[in-house]
């Protein structure tokens, strides 16, 4: 789920890929001009949009949450400490990248970065946790 979401996400963000059949009206709020969805006689709470990007965000978010919160066979206090260390590390990296993005990225590039930043925390956390786990298992074996 996560892999498919990430691949689809890259296509959506960098190649403006969209599934044509995913364009429909749905309850939602947003800027009509930005969404390019201004239609006559349409209630304000109904928007027309292509939902490929929403699908990507949902796939990556749900996939990340499943992986991030999946338990070990024996989930003891040491693994909770490892998770905590990985969360702190991910938070530091996320904050640093956000700081750099605020300073150096503008306009659409900044928006694209913010879309990635929505889920990058989970990616950093999962990566760091599994790296720590891999290193530990290698030392223990």
């Amino acid at each position, binding site marked *: 789920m996560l892999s498919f979401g990430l691949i689809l996400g890259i296509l959506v963000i960098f190649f403006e890929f969209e599934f044509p059949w995913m364009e429909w009206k749905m309850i939602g709020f947003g800027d009509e001009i930005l969404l390019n969805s201004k239609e006559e006689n349409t209630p304000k709470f109904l928007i027309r949009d292509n939902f490929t990007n929403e699908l990507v965000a949902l796939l990556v978010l749900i996939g990340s949450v499943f992986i991030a919160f999946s338990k*070990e*066979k*024996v989930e*003891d*206090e*040491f*693994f909770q*400490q490892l998770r905590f260390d990985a969360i702190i590390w991910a938070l530091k990296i996320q904050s640093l990248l956000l700081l750099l993005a605020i300073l150096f990225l503008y306009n659409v590039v900044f928006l694209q970065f913010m879309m990635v930043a929505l889920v990058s925390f989970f990616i950093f956390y999962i990566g760091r946790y599994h790296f720590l786990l891999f290193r*530990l*298992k290698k*030392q*223990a074996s």
Partner: protein
Amino acid sequence: MKNILREIRMSKEMSQQALAQNTGVSRQSIHAIEKGKYVPSTELALKICRELDKKVEDIFSLD
């Protein structure tokens, strides 16, 4: 905090796996404690001591 868990465990001829199973943790946790990379909670330290029939201060001590 330092410990001589490995020495005590070896003297009792108990494997990391056996100690881990009897104290309800993973083998990696016992390994990390022995290497000094992780300081166990009071509860786990007491369980380990009970399993090895030792007092806490026999195994764990301050640097």
